[in-house]
């Protein structure tokens, strides 16, 4: 924040903004190279918010508006959970809760060749990575990491998946680990996959455990850290009583 001599623009950082708010004025900044993330646009010398959310800043020069939505806007590099909607000769069509269906090329798997093409039924849940997200084009997915390894990406078998807001999924992925997952992890062993598109997959030893974990996560959106811990404690006590 050193590069802003006047105090006023800096005061917007970590504060809620509304569409139309001028959050930065380039003309009174010494270092005029900044990187804009989602929810901001440049209008001549001013940077204007176009979504309601919280303005975030990381050094040296990145700005973005953090929001929580029900619909996901694809972004390169995001790990998401998608559901296969259709399969074509070269691509699977995958629903990632975005504006359009995403393409998953049949060769975008570790060691993928024409010879061994994976077969997915419609409705299969996949953990995938967004590799292309251009406006006016369907986003493209991949089941490998940047070096071509499978690296946890792929089909999610069994378990239970549910939808949430993008804000909640970002909270679950945050480090230090969010309270609800930390508390649950102390008492219950379970598997979880969180997609940035607001989809969560949970698997555990028994259906009742899966229900407890997924309910705890869904309820945690409207609770503070302390409240989350209390809620998880109560759930686990109930679980012990009933078993």
């Amino acid at each position, binding site marked *: 924040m050193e590069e802003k001599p006047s105090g006023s623009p800096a005061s917007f950082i970590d504060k809620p903004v509304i569409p139309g708010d001028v959050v930065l004025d380039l003309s009174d900044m010494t270092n005029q190279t900044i990187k804009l993330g989602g929810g901001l646009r440049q209008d001549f010398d001013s940077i204007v918010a176009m979504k309601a*959310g919280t303005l975030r800043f990381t050094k040296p020069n990145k700005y973005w508006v953090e929001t*929580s939505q*029900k619909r996901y806007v694809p972004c390169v590099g995001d790990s998401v959970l998608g559901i296969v909607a259709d399969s074509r000769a070269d691509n699977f069509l995958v629903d990632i809760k975005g*504006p359009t269906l995403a393409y998953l090329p049949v060769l975008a798997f570790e060691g993928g060749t024409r010879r061994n093409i994976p077969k997915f039924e419609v409705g299969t849940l996949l953990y995938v990575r967004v590799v292309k997200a251009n406006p006016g084009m369907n986003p493209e997915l991949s089941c490998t990491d940047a070096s071509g390894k499978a690296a946890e990406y792929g089909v999610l078998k069994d378990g239970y998946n549910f939808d949430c807001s993008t*804000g909640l999924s970002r909270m679950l992925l945050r480090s230090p680990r969010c309270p609800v997952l930390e508390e649950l992890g102390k008492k219950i062993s379970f598997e979880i996959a969180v997609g940035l598109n607001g989809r969560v997959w949970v698997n555990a030893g028994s259906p009742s455990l899966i229900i407890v974990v997924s309910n705890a996560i869904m309820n945690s959106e409207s609770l503070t850290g302390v409240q989350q811990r209390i809620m998880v404690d109560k759930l686990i006590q109930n679980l012990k009583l009933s078993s």
Partner: protein
Amino acid sequence: MEYVSPEGLRLDGRRPMEMRQIRGEIGVVDKADGSAVFEMGNTKVIAAVYGPREVPNRSQQMNDRALVRCEYTMANFSTGDRMRKPKGDRRSTEISLVIRQTMEACIMTHLMPRTQIDIFVQVLQADGGKSRCLIAAIGTRSACINAATLALSDAGIPMRDLVTSCSAGYLNSTPLLDLNYVEDSAGGADVTLGIMPKLDKVTLLQMDAKLPLDIFENVMQLAIEGCKAVATYIRQVLLENTKQLEYRRGT
């Protein structure tokens, strides 16, 4: 009829430059991507936004910008007499068009090419008496636009600025802010204005009567003030919502 008493009070006890009570709430429809309820006095409107999503009708798809659609309906129970109105009558078509054009001006459609944004607006409760449905419908325009703005920003659709709307009129040689049903049906001039408050731009201006230019300017100025007051309130609602999320996430 006397619409402003000698003491300077209107029929519902407001001052000429006083607005009706406004209230807004977002996130009321679970399935929608964004939704809001907006109340202006006795008028209550619900708005739901879906999108950006794929265009079902390929022939309507535009390669350089998003398609914005708007559907305005009045609930059968919204007025005193229960009326079965055919869907798509001329009045609702007109108001749908007005809302669509107003919102399209603020949505950054070029960022979402080949997609569609649907705005559904329904009047739950229309201010007004028994059967004068036309006036009741006209009077809900500003509430509809305000509800749509809230719902759009709840959906996180990129917008240039908020659009807020308010009406003003001229009765008993007094400019009046935010006409209610009785004043609306008095037959005087009625100016509905929509502005983008931060950019200071007008996106909607409608008037159903004639006014001398100097008086019109006064009335319009009053409507602008009203719009700005609505904008301040809508800002508060959105800020409050963001703060809530922030607080809950314990940052």
